[in-house]
């Protein structure tokens, strides 16, 4: 990691490096490398942190642009909004469960309401904290943040997309939430393609079934389920909805025009997140039935690693296939 940071200096170099090493780079490290590269180019970019340690290199190299606010997320978000009088953009880094849930009112009023260029980056999202338990899980963040006007909500599907998304949210003039996990995950792409905020990526052309997923594990589940259905002779499309807000309604409606069933997949509550957003769009046009795969509406106090918890929540290839077939009837 330290060698990576020292030798990858520019945005283009970081993109090349992350692409070549996308299978082993964690999304949060791809983000950290890219943030530093962006900050070298833009002396007005500020990086705030609430006692995180993945951006140590930033503090060492660009101390003027870095402020550690300690374990105090409400203050960090307020400071981020205040800093925008001179610094743009301002990245505010924390663990998703705390940066979002604890500081929600500051995000609502000081950032989203004010439409300021504050980019909240939350790691450990979804069930990525595994055995650390429900205090450290972030399963409501997509639902609450997408309720706020002006916010852009982005969930990169792998380290390559995380690097691309970091550039995109930095360039976008408004507030954003970038949702990241913890461990490296399998790469989703075979080819380098352009990343555009608010434009879903088609990973498999639409069929009788349409899988819409956001984030690393859900997209891998969707890809696996689509392959398995194809093996069974049932055509299935796959959309990577990396931007949950603004939702790519055009892509959803186009893809489900001929679909007989839609299945959404997210490592977030099945309530209010991507599934909720897709239902809002599909229901308004009287589209096909939608099944939502996500964490059930119970306090999730199970002990286990991320994979175990995802399995328990039904965020699995077998459940995605079963839901799709059941919806087809």
């Amino acid at each position, binding site marked *: 990691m330290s060698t990576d940071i020292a030798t990858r200096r520019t945005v283009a170099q970081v993109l090349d490096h992350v692409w070549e090493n996308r299978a082993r780079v964690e999304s949060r490290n791809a983000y950290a490398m890219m943030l530093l590269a962006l900050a070298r180019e833009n002396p*007005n970019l*500020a990086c705030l942190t609430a006692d995180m340690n993945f951006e140590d290199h930033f503090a060492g190299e660009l101390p*003027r*642009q870095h*402020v550690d*606010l*300690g374990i*105090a997320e*409400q*203050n*960090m*978000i*307020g*400071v*981020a*909004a*205040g*800093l*925008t*009088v*001179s*610094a743009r953009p301002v990245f505010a880094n924390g663990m998703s469960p705390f940066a979002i849930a604890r500081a929600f*009112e*500051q995000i609502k*009023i*000081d950032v989203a*309401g*004010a439409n300021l260029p504050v980019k909240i980056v939350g790691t450990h999202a979804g069930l990525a904290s595994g055995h650390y338990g429900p205090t450290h899980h972030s399963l409501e963040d997509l639902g609450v943040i997408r309720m706020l006007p002006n916010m852009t909500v982005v969930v990169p599907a792998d380290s390559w997309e995380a690097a691309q998304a970091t550039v995109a949210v930095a360039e976008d003039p408004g507030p954003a939430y970038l949702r990241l996990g913890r461990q490296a995950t399998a790469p989703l792409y075979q080819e380098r393609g352009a990343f555009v905020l608010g434009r879903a990526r088609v990973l498999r052309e639409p069929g009788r079934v349409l899988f819409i997923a956001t984030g690393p594990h859900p997209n891998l589940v969707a890809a696996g389920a689509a392959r398995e259905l194809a093996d069974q002779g049932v055509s299935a499309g796959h959309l990577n909805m990396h931007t949950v807000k603004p939702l790519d309604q055009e892509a959803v409606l186009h893809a489900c025009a001929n679909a007989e069933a839609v299945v959404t997949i997210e490592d977030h509550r099945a309530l209010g997140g991507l599934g909720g957003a897709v239902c809002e769009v599909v229901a308004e046009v009287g589209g096909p039935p939608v099944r939502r795969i996500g964490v059930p509406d119970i306090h999730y106090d199970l002990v286990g690693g991320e994979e175990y918890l995802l399995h328990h929540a039904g965020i699995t290839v077998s459940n995605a296939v079963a839901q799709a077939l059941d919806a087809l009837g």
Partner: protein
Amino acid sequence: MSRGLSLEIRRKVIEMSASPNGVHIGGSMSIADILAVLYADVLRDPAAEGMSGDRDHLILSKGQASAALYAVLAATGVIPQAECATYAEEGSRLGGHPMKRLPGVDFSTGALGHGLPLALGVALAGKRFDHGKRAFVILGDGELQEGSNWEAAMAAAHHGADNLVAIVDRNGWQISGRTDDCMSLEPLADKWAAFGWRVLGVDGHDHDEIRTALTRPVEPGRPTVVIAHTVKARGVPGLEDTKQSHSATLGTAARRAALAVLDGDRA
């Protein structure tokens, strides 16, 4: 000049308090002198259009005192004088809490405990990005019960934000009654000092004392808090230092009586 401005602020707040929706008269009157000194003698370009540069910023964290802020913005020509008459009317820019869409308001406030973190961000902008920029924030005393203030207090001292000045309107009241009956704040000066701040105490209605405190040379590396001892609803007969002054509508007779007191002060 600040004396005339404070009278003008009070006069406008009394006029706005005709609103059937009620005005936070108590907390607006308790900061009238603080605002007058700030706008007359202390702040540099507080209503400049752009946010960057070495201008000063004032954040009214106790946003419920919006009427006093509207009054000073009108009196100093930032918004039209006549606009005060639209306070809380449907479609007005002047709501019960100040909104950023109004010229002279850099941050929307009203949810308590937001102003000090915002002001610290502005102060750090002055330290790191726009040298010379200063941040002033007016906090309510009851507001200090919100924990985010103490997160910001700790961070401001840690990061040496000596271009940050917090003014605590210590009028001693909050909605439910006496502040220290609801939640003890004392020893308030010691609390700020323990967090690493320079603490100054003033009579919040004595313009010379306020001015002296707000124009003191900075103490390098330390933020400053001015604890302004004030009287809720200062200058309004029958409402001074009362719980019911928190939010009220004044009838014609009450407004006339209050304005008469102000005219007496002016004479």
